[in-house]
């Protein structure tokens, strides 16, 4: 028989002295030839910035390979470990320096897996940050096709003039981000609208 899982509890307001680490947001250096900035703001249900959230990305490398190398907490400047963590600043803004992930399976669109923790969030939330530049791949992706068209844009980052990727997280509201559930991953929302 399966063991029952340990329940989650909020990361709380006081994680800033414990979980962030030097270079957590820098998966590659800014001088890396393919370096890209992935950034955005976390908003609450009133559209106010959330100043006490913590974000993690976990991603394949440019060639779609899932990294197996250790060293994320003390980066050596050469090894791509695929995992990063950063708190938002006092305006709710976050920023990662990384490379764009390649696709891991033919026929699917590449994405960053983004995990959101915050005071007020009793459990982590998962979402996927897709790249905006390949409409054909996006249209062919089976997961994106399963998302109602009206909400699909919340999963797709936007490219700005400097080539950066912009991805805002809306915990609630008109543009509420699509958050994900997975098999064998217990999560309790409590009452929801739909």
């Amino acid at each position, binding site marked *: 028989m399966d063991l*029952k899982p340990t*329940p989650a509890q909020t990361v709380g307001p006081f994680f800033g002295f414990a979980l962030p680490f030097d270079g957590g947001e820098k998966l590659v250096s800014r001088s890396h030839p393919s370096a890209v900035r992935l950034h955005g703001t976390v908003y609450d249900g009133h559209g106010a910035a959330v100043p006490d959230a913590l974000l993690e990305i976990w991603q394949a490398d440019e060639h779609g390979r899932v990294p197996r190398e250790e060293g994320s907490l003390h980066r050596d400047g050469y090894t791509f470990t695929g995992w990063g963590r950063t708190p938002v600043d006092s305006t709710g803004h976050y920023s990662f320096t990384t490379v764009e992930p390649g696709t891991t*399976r033919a026929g699917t669109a590449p994405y960053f897996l983004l995990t959101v923790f915050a005071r007020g969030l009793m459990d982590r939330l998962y979402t996927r940050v897709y790249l905006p530049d390949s409409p054909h791949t996006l249209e062919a992706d089976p997961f994106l096709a399963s998302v109602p068209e009206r909400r699909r844009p919340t999963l797709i980052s936007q490219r700005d003039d400097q080539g950066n990727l912009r991805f805002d997280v809306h915990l609630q509201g008109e543009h509420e981000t699509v958050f994900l559930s997975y098999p064998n991953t217990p999560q*309790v*929302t409590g009452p929801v609208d739909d």
Partner: protein
Amino acid sequence: MGEIDTNPDAAAASQEEISAEISALHQEYEQARAQGAPEETSARLNFPPYRSSLLRHPTKSLHHADPEDIELHSPAFGHRDVSPLEADLTIQHGGEPIGERIVVAGRLLDAAWRPVPHQLVEVWQANAAGRYIHKRDQHPAPIDPNFTGVGRILTNAAGEYSFTTIKPAPYPWKNHHNAWRSAHIHFSLFGTDFTQRIVTQMYFPGDPLFELDPIYQSITDTAARKRLIADYDHTLSQHEWNTGYRWDIVLGGSNRTWTEQEEQ
């Protein structure tokens, strides 16, 4: 619901009001269970007695995704990432921290009883006076110059972890008037799959604040709540040195096939 103050620091409601909201939600859950509703094995994202959740919980159902390669794996951590010294929170400064020295130990397992070896465990906590080393914690309790309250551990080949620390005290917060958190240690954990990622809190047996604490009570299921309470374990206590607590952590299930599991 319309009249609830959404400012998480309003400290507007009384403990009696918060406790009444909690027991109404628990009763509602138990009645639904009696009529066949599913067991809730985690905390509710939407739990109004925890005021900070009001504007921050998703209002729509989570969207089902089949895990792809990245979700079936987790980042690797090793001795480049974590020094063995980081498992002792009492030796990070020039002197001994004040408080009750404890060892906390246990196993990190997945739902299929498989130990999760060589994975990162992060812990953080308040000191023996209930004060955090965090600039936003300004309540009038003393900082201990010999205690930061942050530790990191790698599980061993059998999925076991152990660390030495000081027992944290309860602390006040502004969710409602005269609100106090049950004493706890925060844990951050990874599994073999990123979908097993969890942040949670470990509690101590017999805490009189459990009933009053909307964060702890956001787990509506009584048996699930108890899974966050460590056991006092005298085999972890050491003569004239420390007392001990044991707490096993169970992650959600892995979605890898057995062969994928084996190649790790």
